[in-house]
């Protein structure tokens, strides 16, 4: 399999720079206003999760931008649409990182270089991207990380040499285990690879095996293309911006009536409510998963009204949009395994009856972790009776 990793470093910052070109290249902090922590920063020296105050004091006078995740997600989705014009299999990993399956495309586009040129062209102008190509996602990601912006690089045949001096921090394992690897003196992938698999497994469990395999260049992860789903979207713009919840609720009801009519006998599992805030303050959005798929306006409106009441809206609203997704027929309504025993009491009673019928303790167990850190496998997990 040949996979390309398209890496757009600090994509959120790049999107903000496109909106305000005068900020381009200046130290910029995209922060979460609710928790006052950094989501993304330029330059990279400020890590995500850094308190806003600490980040500002380190950068002097950075540009401060309140994060608008819905806008970033939309921009990234559009970028994925563009990448899908080159390959039908594109997997988004996180905002700014996508994997593209290139297998078989060379014969279509006339060679690897031509394919990669197409991929580069598919990225909208104004975005800085790095492209890495490798036999697996991890190697492709590393190749992308090590190539200059606007270029592509292919993982060399000698993967051992390629990986040898890479820092252990690039491994997709928990921060805690990265720290422990370093405590053991394993600071590079070469050092991790030079150890046998067993001790790493004994110390770090599954993540140890994963780290060891990746350090050897063995990547078992599969590319999982994003799924396309039918979305029903309805929008409504106010003549003048509104602030009253009643007006917003009425708009939502109107949109739901329109959208649900278009379902033609189906039901929707999810709704995305988006409010466009005046004047140009971006959007506020919230995705709702219905407990049961809805086809009825009253049922959906009840849920969305509750969401609306909890939303923090930073200004008057000039546009409301609703997207319904996860469409299914009546048969798609999920039946519960314990349909008549949702209540804890009923479940307990059913187990009692089961025990009475079997004449022994209920054979339903759950797995619990005892000492997951133990080097002795039999100490790590145990089966215990299921007591609801």
């Amino acid at each position, binding site marked *: 399999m040949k996979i390309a990793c398209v890496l757009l470093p600090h994509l959120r910052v790049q999107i903000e720079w496109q909106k305000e070109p005068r900020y381009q290249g200046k130290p910029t902090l995209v922060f979460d206003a609710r928790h006052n922590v950094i989501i993304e920063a330029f330059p990279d020296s400020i890590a995500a999760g850094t308190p806003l105050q600490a980040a500002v004091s380190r950068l002097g006078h950075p540009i401060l931008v309140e994060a608008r995740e819905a806008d970033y997600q939309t921009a990234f989705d559009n970028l994925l649409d563009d990448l899908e014009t080159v390959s039908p299999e594109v997997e988004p990993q996180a905002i700014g990182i996508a994997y593209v399956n290139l297998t078989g495309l060379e014969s279509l586009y006339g060679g690897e270089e031509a394919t990669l040129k197409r991929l580069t062209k598919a990225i909208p102008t104004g975005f800085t991207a790095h492209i890495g190509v490798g036999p697996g996602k991890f190697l492709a990601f590393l190749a992308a990380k090590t190539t200059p912006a606007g270029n592509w690089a292919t993982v060399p045949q000698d993967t051992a040499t390629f990986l040898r001096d890479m820092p252990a921090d690039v491994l997709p394992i928990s921060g805690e285990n990265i720290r422990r690897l370093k405590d053991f003196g394993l600071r590079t992938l070469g050092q991790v690879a030079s150890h046998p698999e067993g001790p790493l497994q004994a110390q770090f*469990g*599954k993540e140890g095996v994963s780290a060891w395999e990746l350090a050897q260049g063995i990547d078992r992860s599969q590319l999982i293309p994003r799924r396309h789903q039918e979305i029903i979207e309805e929008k409504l713009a106010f003549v003048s911006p509104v602030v009253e919840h009643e007006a917003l609720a009425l708009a939502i009801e109107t949109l739901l009536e329109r959208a649900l009519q278009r379902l033609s006998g189906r039901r929707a599992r999810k709704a995305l409510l988006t409010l466009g805030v005046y004047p140009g303050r971006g959007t506020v959005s919230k995705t709702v998963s219905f407990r049961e798929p809805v086809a009825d306006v009253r049922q959906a409106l009840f849920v969305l009204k509750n969401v609306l009441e909890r939303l923090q809206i930073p200004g008057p609203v000039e546009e409301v949009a609703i997207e319904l997704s996860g469409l299914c027929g009546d048969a798609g309504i999920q039946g519960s395994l314990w349909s008549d025993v949702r209540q804890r009491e009923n479940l307990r009673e059913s187990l009692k009856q089961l025990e009475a019928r079997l004449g022994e303790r209920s054979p339903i167990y759950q797995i619990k972790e*005892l000492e997951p850190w133990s080097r*002795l496998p*039999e*100490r790590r997990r*145990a089966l215990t009776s299921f007591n609801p």
Partner: protein
Amino acid sequence: MEQTTGTAPGTNQLQPLNQPKPIKVKADTNGYPTSVYPGRWLKVDCVEEVWRIDDEWWREVPVSRLYFRLLVSNGRKITVFHDLVANRWCWQEYG
């Protein structure tokens, strides 16, 4: 010395997973397995790894095991250990 609880594992509603299971093993003079018997005798094609675990030394019966990850003649990989305290061989899922 720390006493064991005296409670056999598996009672009191807890059943530890991945318990070691006794297995017949033929070993060479260095103590390395040459054949194992998980139902029938299988030749060891390759000893892929060896590691030792010494633990619970503060208990009456400490743990001292020499683990072997083996590639056996039917192509499977199995993990066995030599219990150096009880001088017996066990097979165990290691993961």
